[in-house]
Each structure stands twice: as structure tokens, then as C-alpha cells.
């Protein structure tokens, strides 16, 4: 198996990004069953399908050595969202993805966690570039991508999501040591 050793735990000001654990299942299932919230991520039709995705993400870590981290709140220990690197069969390129669960939006947590995951992908996984796929109309996600310094590149047909916009992140050389975008500093 390809799991990194030791298992990565990324720390930000307010969150820990850690590998998924069985205790995260209910929070992830609740998110995936929330059609409105999960629309841009790929909502699940039922509990069985949602559980399947939860197991799939664990498999993604085992096969690739990366996947979606559980974003855990440092103060409460609650799972607040999913942020990580995702590389499904049929995707144009590996992507940096993010979702926040109900009650954890609008606090800048996704930005904080996505920065940490992107830094990790560049520094530890040696990625040279990263994309984010965002379905048209997901304005909050577009705003976050732009805040992260990513720019719109093209629209294409995603194997799972249908029409999809591909954003490209600044590469490792374009970022300062703290992960922020030089030109935006």
C-alpha cells in the first residue's frame, strides 16, 4: 500500500487536517445526503451510497497516498469539512478540493485548510501544479479558488459532474514560504 508514513496531520490556526476515521462517517454521510450543499461535490442518493463514498475516500488514500482529509476543529474536535487532493479515474488532473459542513461555512476555514493542503501537496507529494474543478454556478467555490490565487482555465465535460470549470492554482514556485500568492501579498 502507498500510505505515507507517518500519516500526515496538517495543523492550521483553527483546524487539524487528518486522515479519515470511522468516527467521521456520520458527518460525511449527512453532508453527502444534503442535496443543496453537496450538489457541487457529488451528492449521494441514499445512505448506502454515502457510506460507499466514505469508504472510497479511504481507498483513495491507500491507492494514491493522498485523498480528502477530515478537517477537524481544534477547539471542539468536531469534523468541519473535507479538504484534500483528489484524483479519480477520468479526471483531467489531480485537484485540490474542499467542502465545509453545515455550520462551518463563512468563517474562512476552507481557505485556511485548502492553503495547508496545497502546501503539503507541493512540499511533500512534489506536485508541480494543481487544479480545482468547480461546477458552473458555484460562486462561493469560485470566490475561494480566486482567493487562493487560482485562475479559470477552461470549461470541459467531467465524467461525473457534467459541465465543469477547471481552475489552475499557482505552482510551488509562485508561492511564498507561507503558501500565499506573491502577487497578492
Amino acid at each position, binding site marked *: 500500500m502507498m500510505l505515507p508514513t507517518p500519516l500526515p496531520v496538517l495543523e492550521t490556526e483553527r483546524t487539524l487536517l487528518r486522515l479519515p476515521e470511522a468516527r467521521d462517517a456520520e458527518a460525511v454521510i449527512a453532508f453527502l445526503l444534503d442535496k443543496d450543499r453537496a450538489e457541487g461535490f457529488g451528492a449521494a442518493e441514499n445512505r*448506502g451510497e454515502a457510506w460507499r463514498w466514505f*469508504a472510497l475516500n479511504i481507498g483513495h*488514500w*491507500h491507492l494514491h497516498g493522498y485523498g480528502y482529509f477530515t478537517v477537524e476543529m481544534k477547539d471542539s474536535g468536531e469534523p468541519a469539512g473535507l479538504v484534500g487532493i483528489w484524483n*479519480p479515474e477520468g479526471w483531467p488532473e489531480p485537484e485540490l478540493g474542499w467542502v465545509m459542513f453545515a455550520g462551518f461555512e463563512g468563517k474562512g476555514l476552507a481557505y485556511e485548510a485548502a492553503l495547508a493542503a496545497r502546501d503539503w501537496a507541493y512540499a511533500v507529494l512534489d506536485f508541480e501544479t494543481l487544479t480545482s474543478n468547480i461546477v458552473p454556478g458555484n460562486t462561493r467555490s469560485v470566490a475561494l479558488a480566486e482567493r487562493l490565487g487560482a485562475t479559470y482555465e477552461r470549461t470541459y465535460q467531467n465524467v461525473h459532474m457534467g459541465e465543469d470549470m477547471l481552475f489552475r492554482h499557482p505552482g510551488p514556485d509562485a508561492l511564498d514560504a507561507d503558501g500565499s500568492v506573491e502577487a497578492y501579498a
Partner: protein
Amino acid sequence: MSAMTLPIPVIETDRLILRGPKESDFEAFNAFGESERAKHIGGPYPRFRNWGGFLTTFGHWALRGYGMWMLEDKATGTPAGRVGMIYHESWDEPELGWQVYDGYEGKGIAFEAATAARDYAARHFGLDGVVSYIDPANTRSVALAKRLGAAFEREGTVLGHSCHVYRHPKVMEAA
């Protein structure tokens, strides 16, 4: 147990090695999933869905402590199918499942593998007297269930499809 622990044992039978899935198994896994033969498990499924199913296998082992083994043909090293215990969120109870890949049917491979898996599950996973969910139109699978000593118990549902529930005899009889 950590969700990142993969406790996948290796079992050897006369002609097979039952082991955890490897990345190189995916093409064989996908070929089965895309084929007409997958109609008895709700398919055929597109490649993207098969990719998800393949990855789910790892997570199933991590979360349940048991799951589906890949069958490796000892003679050639080729993936010959899958067998093992499946217990997804929406299942009534854990089931013994089997799939034989193209070119490996009619050789008693599934019987050999399912016998070993059923025995292992009873001894090590505490899963004994298990069920198999079978599409009644899948006559070969029904025949295998009967050859394994399983008997029709009731009608059921799996993944939104009606199925027949076969109950296997206990391995650890009166143990």
C-alpha cells in the same frame, strides 16, 4: 481500529491466492464491471463507477475489518475474480459474495474460493451462517449457492434490486 488499518489476510487454496486488491487489478475489475455479466450485481457500470467500487473495497476492509479478496490464479498470477464478505451500509447483514472473471468460469474456482472465504469468515470474523444475495436469474450463482450447501430463505432487496436470500450452513457447528 484506525480507518487506515488494512487487516487483509492472505489465504491459499489449491489453485488460488486470496489477497487484498492491488492497483494492477483494476483493469480486470473494470472489465467485469463493464461487462454484461455485471447485470446480476446491478450493472453494467461505467468505468468511473467501477473506479469507485474498486477503491471502496479498501475502505470496506478498513471500516468493517473484513471484505472482498481478489482471487489470483496461482499458475499465472492473473486476477480470476473476487470473493469475500460484503456489508455495505444498506445491507441487511453481511453476505458472502463471489464474482468470477472472464475465462475462469466452469472450473470450480468460485466454489474453491467461496469455501475458503466462508470458512475464514466463520473462524476469524465471527461471521457464520451467513447469507448470499442472489439475482434469481443468475442461475450459475444459484447453482453455486446450492453446491455450497446454502438454501433459499426469503426474498429480499439489495441496492434497490429484488433478490433471493440464500442462507449458508454454519461452519462452526456446535463449536
